[in-house]
């Protein structure tokens, strides 16, 4: 027959359990290293957030399977949705730094969001890793010390590649620009103007559009009347699709060369039958001959995500590939730093000598002067074939 507990026993049992829990927690040493992600997980760019998540997850699984970092600490991904809104991104970043204690923050597709977060991380001395947003001033932000790193394209370099592609593939001499009316569009206006000047060609004009614009034919008509022989597009999937629909509506079959924002959402569905006409930039393609890392990552993606049956299903590849390599480089930086503290981790990034990654073989990817691990030699031009992204050959 069970006997009644005395008051002392009643107090002693929970206290003992709590103490036991603390003593028996081997884990202080194995406390996870939290990796924060602030990205568009919903809205028109939700696919970008999903791609980044998948790239990070595959890398984290690999690292954890090998015993984690810093003597057995596992990596743990903590995600927050910025809804492509800079204010929400800032709030999420603050929460991940102050409340979750993340060792590093990864960013998403939207340059305005990353631009809003960068001053925050520089002040908090927590490294930020851009894996998609390409605005030049994300990494080249003038802060000293600068905590912003990036494994992604840089607008100023992408702009050169876009102008070069317009000239070589379409013999363009007067391309016109269609730019989203925000900080990312501004970043590219400067870059494309400079790139055109350097290439010795003249721009027919530069038009802006809002994310919610319903009809872009007036802007396109201005470019057409100004003699544009190609359109260079900078915008995300939904407004980018409106540009293409407006071109289709005007029956203006001009070549379209796009920055990679269109690959962050349901561009082929939204743009309809003209989606495949658009050439755009990526940093990686899972098609063609893969290195060992490529084979391993593709196999892991196919094993983990049932919707991935082949290279064409890894969409958007840029999000997956950049995030994968950036996470592996972060693990190396943690090892070099011997700590997850922000200033030491920052030094860890600068101390990485080399890494055979998915996108390329990185040699001294980050230095005091250069926080961008990729350059114009790492870009590949692609287009949609149905829902799949394929490299442009020939």
């Amino acid at each position, binding site marked *: 027959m069970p006997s009644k507990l005395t008051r002392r026993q009643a107090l002693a049992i929970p206290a003992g359990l709590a103490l036991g829990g603390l003593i028996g927690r081997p884990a202080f040493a194995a406390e996870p290293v939290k990796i924060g992600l602030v990205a568009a997980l*919903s*809205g*028109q760019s*939700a*696919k970008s957030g999903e791609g980044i998540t998948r790239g990070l997850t595959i890398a984290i699984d690999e690292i954890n399977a090998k015993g984690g970092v810093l003597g057995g600490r596992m990596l743990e991904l903590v995600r927050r949705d910025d*809804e492509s809104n800079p204010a929400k991104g800032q709030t999420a970043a603050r929460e991940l730094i102050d409340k979750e204690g993340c060792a590093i923050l990864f960013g998403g597709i939207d340059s305005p969001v990353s631009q809003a977060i960068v001053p925050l991380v520089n002040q908090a001395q927590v490294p930020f890793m851009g894996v998609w947003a390409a605005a030049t001033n994300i990494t080249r932000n003038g802060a000293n010390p600068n905590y912003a790193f990036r494994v992604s394209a840089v607008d100023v370099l992408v702009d050169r590649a876009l102008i070069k592609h317009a000239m070589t593939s379409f013999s363009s001499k007067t391309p016109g620009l269609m730019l989203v*009316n925000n900080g990312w569009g501004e970043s590219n206006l400067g870059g494309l103007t400079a790139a055109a000047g350097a290439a010795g060609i003249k721009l027919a004009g530069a*038009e*802006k*559009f*809002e994310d*919610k*614009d*319903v*009809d872009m*034919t*007036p*802007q396109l*008509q*201005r470019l*057409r*009347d100004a003699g544009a022989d190609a359109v260079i597009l900078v915008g995300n999937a*939904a407004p980018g*699709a*409106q540009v293409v*629909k407006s071109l*289709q*509506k*005007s*029956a*203006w079959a001009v070549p379209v060369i796009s920055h990679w924002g269109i690959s962050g*959402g*349901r561009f082929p*569905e*939204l743009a*309809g*039958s003209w989606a495949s006409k658009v050439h755009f930039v990526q940093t990686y393609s899972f098609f063609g001959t893969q290195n060992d890392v490529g084979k391993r990552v593709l196999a892991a993606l196919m094993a983990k995500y049932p919707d991935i049956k082949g290279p064409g299903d890894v969409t958007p590849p840029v999000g997956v590939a950049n995030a994968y390599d950036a996470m592996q480089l972060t693990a190396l930086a943690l090892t070099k730093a011997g700590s997850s503290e922000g200033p030491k981790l920052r030094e860890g990034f600068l101390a990485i000598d080399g890494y055979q990654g998915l996108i390329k073989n990185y040699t001294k990817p980050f230095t005091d002067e250069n926080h961008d691990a990729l350059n114009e030699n790492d870009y590949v031009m692609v287009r949609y074939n149905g829902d799949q992204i394929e490299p442009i050959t020939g």
Partner: protein
Amino acid sequence: MLATALVSGLSLGSIYGLIALGFTLTFSVSGTVNFAQGSSVMLGAVICHALAVSLHWPMLAAVPVALFACAVWGLIVERIAVRPFVVRGTNSWLMATVALGIVLDNVAMVFFGKEPRALPSSLADDPWVIGKVGIFPLQVLIPVVGLGLAWLVHLGMVRTGLGLKLRAAVDNPDAARLMSIDVTRLVALTYAAAALLAGIGGILIAPLYNVAYDMGTLFGIKAFAVAILGGLTNPWGVVIAGLAYGLVEACATTWLGSSSTQIVTFTAVIAALALAPSGLFGSRSKARV
């Protein structure tokens, strides 16, 4: 460039006018407006997408069901967010209709998702081209439907028994009640009709734009500006104001660039209202003291 601006402006302007007609209907009969009208635009498009694209219903079946749902939504708005406040003599229906619209948008977000989707239509795939100007057949259909519906509303008001009752309710609700006219039911009916018109607008614009849970917000705001501009009680005035608004918007974008569009259009609305406070085609109300 002028031809492009005309084509673009007229098709968008017709949509604004169509949605704004709903404001006119309810305001004429009850002195209230449904600020969730933009959400009705979204509801029509979202339900049509769900039935036609997700469930593969034929469009001929999906459209009537979506419009029926919009009409029911209009009745719900009137019953929950308008009638209780009008009965108590307060203007809180202003906030209540806004709030109910936000609730509907968020419910749509939960079920439909946050990603915009496409509503394919053969009427928005192969343009007719004249010189440098292209136009989707749907862009021609939209003004035709908009003007046709405005004509139907007009005919309904002046030629039918229901229209007679509505006009009686507008002129003198108390006298109409004494004549056994169920004014409460008439007001509910106009809310259903207003939501239905907005739903038609949503379904028509969806193939040219996208379907998204928040697509109605901007259309709702612009349509309200159009309704005020046209004179809230004048259906034809509202339709003409819609076309004018669409044309000013397209011309501003064409000649001044997209950054100037909202500045120019809303400045034009303010200027027009400063010159004609009751709207361009509204009648000035007289108050006897």
